[in-house]
């Protein structure tokens, strides 16, 4: 079905594989629509067979035989442990049960703050209204680790995002709006934060101060390519080299077992 030659892969495959590798066995994972679904299913099929996936519309540990196209999809229910609703799974999140979450965003800044709400101001009206937050900030706030999957573009990797939809490592303390470490805002509910950002070009992580740095570049890219596609002063000195490419087994799982219909992997 896939038209890929052996050893060949597309960018989206690499994103799914890199994200899947962030999953530890037995992790309880919140996953959203799209790439996160591929990532958690691939992780379960490889190194993390006992990872549990929660979809925010209300299914816990489903074992779908057909890939869902959204978290509200009937396919999420199949062989799930519990099918309930948002109140249940969000309460579990707040209770501290979620280890890892996969999220996305339109813009991100050096502290890992993410914008999915509005570009070019907010009040009284934005220049460009986006979809809004969804569960992104809630999950990002209360899971132990989160991984963002994004498109690498200069205009998306900013010194400071136009609107902080989802909290990174340095965030406003209201009402003053002073930027402080996430720990100071969340207090006893501080559990961690953005652990990795995976783009079509590289993987980023965050240092002890909560500042983004380059961790690995994908095959075919250099740290300089990445620098040309961020609009802030990115630390590339800790770059560990090249992102491990997908294995043939991973590609086969993605195209033949996880998304044979070609829903996300066209």
């Amino acid at each position, binding site marked *: 079905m896939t038209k890929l030659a052996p050893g060949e892969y597309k960018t989206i495959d690499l994103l799914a594989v890199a994200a899947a590798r962030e999953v530890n066995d037995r992790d309880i994972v919140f996953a959203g629509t799209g790439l996160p679904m591929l990532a958690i299913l691939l992780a379960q099929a490889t190194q993390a067979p006992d990872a549990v996936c929660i979809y925010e519309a209300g299914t816990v540990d489903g074992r779908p035989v057909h890939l869902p196209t959204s978290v509200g999809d009937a396919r999420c229910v199949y062989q799930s442990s519990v099918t309930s609703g948002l109140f249940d799974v969000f309460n579990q999140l707040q209770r501290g049960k979620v280890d890892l979450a996969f999220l996305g965003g339109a813009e991100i800044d050096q502290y890992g703050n993410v914008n999915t709400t509005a570009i070019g101001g907010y009040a009284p009206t934005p220049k460009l209204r986006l979809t809004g937050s969804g569960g992104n900030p*809630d999950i990002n706030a209360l899971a132990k680790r989160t991984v963002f999957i994004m498109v690498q573009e200069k205009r998306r990797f900013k010194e400071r995002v136009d609107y902080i939809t989802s909290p990174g490592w340095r965030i406003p303390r209201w009402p003053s709006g002073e930027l402080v470490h996430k720990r100071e805002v969340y207090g006893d509910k501080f559990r961690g934060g953005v652990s990795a950002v995976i783009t079509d070009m590289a993987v980023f992580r965050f240092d002890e101060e909560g500042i983004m740095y380059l961790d690995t570049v994908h095959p075919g890219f250099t740290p300089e390519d990445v620098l040309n596609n961020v609009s802030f002063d990115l630390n590339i000195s800790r770059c560990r080299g090249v992102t491990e490419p997908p294995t043939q087994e991973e590609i086969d799982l993605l195209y033949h077992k996880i998304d044979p219909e070609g829903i996300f992997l*066209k």
Partner: protein
Amino acid sequence: MTQQKRISLKEAAGLIKDGDAITFSGFTIWRRPFAMIYELIRQGRKNLHLMEVNGGTHTDMFAGAGALGIWESCWAGHELYGKLGANVSRRAQAGEMLVEDYSHVHMVCRFAAGSMGLPYYPTYASLGTDILNPAYDTLGNAGLRDGSNPKIPRHKYLHATSDFYEPSHLLHIPAARPDWCIVQAQLVGEEGTIRINGQKYSDEEAIKSAERVIVLAESVVPESALRQEPERNLIPPYFVDYIIEVPWGAHPTGVYGNYEVDGKFINDYYNRTKTQEGFDAWAQEWIYGVESHEEYLAKLGISRLESLRANPMLKYSTNVKRGSRS
């Protein structure tokens, strides 16, 4: 024993007035009561105050039709079938509707509080975001938080602290108390018991927070049959004011166990309605130019509907084309 009040779609839509606060069953593009949504647009309802845990294609249609005065929620889009609610964005950018942003958990908290008779709900979710930016309190900025509108709380949220255990900082999020909740359910008993199969989303909270509830049922069934497994039922009759049997009433959204999301329909809507002119033309074809739900179904045609029909064991369609290789 009592039969619940049966009513037509047109009559039910007529009960909802311009300016009313409304909410819906479902999640993004799943189990939305579209037959009623179309009828409300057809009847020209204006200035609605839509409060919902999340939005979807229906939100965007209301926006396109200029039916929304206020929209309080956390998200609008079409999932895979359109990357954002273009009509919501256009109206919001033009300042033609007020958008009050909360997070997903905040919105669940709002309806949970409303459903429990509480004025607010505590949570830790989404601290340290611009959702809480005092300058971004849309309804406050519009001068609407003076207590004169019983559907608008005096504060968007409040800070709170606790020293019961560890010293702790949290939020109080105000209850949502819509005038109406309109529900698409798989099964409703003749007396009004509601059974939702599959994910319940936030239906329980939405229904119980509302002052009045209208249910569109895929099937109205004998009450005693539902009561053989009362653990599977969600809502007792006294929360339900009106029942309408409307098979396929959620199309183009999906209903677990009944039918699939019509992704092609939604994607076509998205592609054609990015401009107001495009929306108007689409709405003329599919809303204003269609007299009734029956006519809408006839226009869709039997083979389209049959391709969406769920496999009775899997609870979703295995016939619909979903991807590039299916």
